[in-house]
């Protein structure tokens, strides 16, 4: 009869090894694929590894990355925020309107309004106990309606009138535009908060086990309220920066953005059920999506539908791998 220890964790070294490998694949998989793509892309397309193209990729990634930072926090609690695309558009439109009062107006107006929207959604989720999916789905519709109402049914595109705001979107140093630095700052601040603040740890705990978090006396409702607010702020900020970058608040942008953001977060190794993930992974996920798009553009003959197929297929592969890996690790 074999001696076994039912209470012990993994026993055989092979299994420990497998689990560790699975964990590594989950955490760094996106980064590894990103590096491979960068290498392959550089070899295949001479126009790809140029400074201007890479800077271009960085700029394009920055807006999605800011949204992704907020989305990561929401998903870490086990929730989801489908309203970010609409909030992104609203942020842009409000930034353009607000720019009439200068840089401060152009930034404060979208941020304050998105804070309010995030608070309302968060409150309904946290205190009303409604499913995040449906609350933010209503948010997606309602906020888009608000954007249309503000722009005469989407027919008018308010322009950014404040040069300082435009400079924030278009200027930069060392060949990189300001939004890139802002996105990196968001990742940095977000990471520090997540890993080194009580609130961040509470986010992980709520996603890890909500019932245990309640019993451990963590402020679960406040955590949820906060993450939806953070997500709103991030989406609004990304929208405002996009408006600054394009000098206009286009009311129709951001349709489907929530999908890209969720894809990036999930590809970055954050578990959709919450409790585990990080912003570095999200950064890799965002870059991966943008690089794929850029490479497809490099080919020239391929179109945006190819990109949709690749992104969707990639997401499918990643979630399948995640599910299988999670099973290996007995999550």
């Amino acid at each position: 009869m074999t001696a076994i220890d039912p209470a012990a964790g993994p026993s055989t070294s092979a299994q420990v090894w497998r689990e560790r490998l699975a964990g590594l694949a989950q955490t760094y998989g996106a980064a590894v694929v990103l590096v491979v793509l960068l290498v392959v892309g550089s070899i295949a397309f001479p126009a790809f590894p140029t400074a201007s193209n890479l800077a271009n990729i960085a700029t394009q990634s920055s807006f999605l990355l800011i949204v992704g930072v907020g989305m990561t926090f929401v998903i870490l609690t086990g929730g989801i925020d489908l309203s970010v695309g609409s909030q992104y558009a609203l942020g842009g439109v409000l930034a353009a309107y607000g720019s009439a009062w200068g840089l401060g107006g152009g930034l404060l107006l979208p941020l304050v309004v998105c804070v309010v929207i995030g608070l309302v959604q968060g409150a309904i989720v946290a205190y009303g106990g409604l499913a995040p999916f449906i609350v933010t789905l209503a948010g997606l519709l309602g906020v888009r309606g608000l954007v249309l109402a503000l722009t005469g049914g989407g027919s008018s595109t308010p322009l950014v009138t404040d040069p300082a705001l435009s400079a924030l979107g278009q200027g930069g140093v060392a060949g990189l535009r300001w939004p890139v630095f802002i996105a990196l700052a968001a990742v940095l601040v977000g990471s520090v908060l997540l890993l080194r603040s009580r609130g961040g740890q509470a986010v992980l705990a709520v996603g890890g086990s909500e019932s245990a978090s309640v019993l451990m006396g963590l402020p679960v409702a406040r955590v949820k309220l906060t993450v939806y607010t953070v997500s709103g702020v991030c989406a609004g900020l990304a929208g405002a920066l996009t408006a600054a970058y394009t000098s206009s608040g286009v009311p129709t942008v951001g349709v489907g953005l929530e999908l890209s953001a969720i894809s990036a977060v999930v590809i970055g190794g954050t578990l959709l059920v919450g409790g585990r993930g990080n912003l570095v992974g999200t950064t890799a996920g965002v870059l991966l999506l943008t690089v794929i798009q850029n490479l497809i553009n490099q080919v020239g003959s391929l179109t945006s539908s190819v990109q949709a197929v690749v992104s969707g297929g990639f997401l499918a592969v990643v979630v399948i791998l995640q599910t299988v890996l999670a099973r290996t690790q007995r999550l």
Partner: protein
Amino acid sequence: MSQTLTVALPRRATVVGFFQRYGVYLAIVIVLVVNLAVTPNFFTLDNVRVQLVQVVPVLIVALGMALAIGTEGIDLSVGASMALAAAVIPLYIGYGVVPAALIALACSLLIGLANGVMIAVIGVQPIVATLSLMVAGRGIALLVAGEQLRSVTDPGFLALGRGAIGPLPWSVLIAAVLVAIVAVLVSRTTFGKQLVALGGSRRAAELAGLPVRRILLVTYLLSAALAGVAGVIGTARLGASVPSTLGNLVELSAITAVVVGGTPLSGGQVRVIGTVAGALLLQLITATLVKHDVSDAYSQIAQAVIILLAVYIQRGRAVQR
């Protein structure tokens, strides 16, 4: 003891229960009465027919969505299934209406199969699995169509969208038949009972020996097939295959119709007639707003409020249990 429990239920719960059960019908009556009072020419045969024809695609998609939601899942890829069916039609319409429609359905079934395998066999969460196909599926549809709008002129095919037998448009008739089939499927078949049990408690269903994987697989196949039918009818109505926009955001309308109709998002129940009523209610509200020149913007906001209200009322039921 059970009897005391039933009697002891507080009165408020029965009021909430009433709205959960009949709220959607009540709302339809209110919207109709309001229109009777304020909208001229609302109750003409023409208008009724227009409303019915317009509700058909969302309604058919919502039937499949109700099944997916009944298993405690969701299907975000229905729009892509519609688009793929639409994209295929002009390629095969030369072989006749029926073969083209069947091939279109088969293609949308492929999306359902991919969903089903990911969800049922691999165990991916329905929301991400169908999300990936929502993105990829529409891309495939666009590639199939060569990213072009193609008009379809086959008169037999167009009749599917525009023709009628007597006063009844073909599309409405098809929808009615599908509603009946799904209603029977849910209430009178082994599959329907098992689906509802699976949604009520997956673990219990597994331990009772139900073929859980097969049920989930078939559910997502059905959802995709119904979306495919909606795509074919939508294409017939437009007289053109427009895979880039056909079925955009239809998942939202379908989910709303299902939830407004009283099917809880937490699974374990499928209310087919409620779903029909939910779809009709949304259509009537939109039509009312349109007739009074209320912009799209406000009708979207109205839809958002309706979703939240409906889910809030549904939540009451979950708490009661």
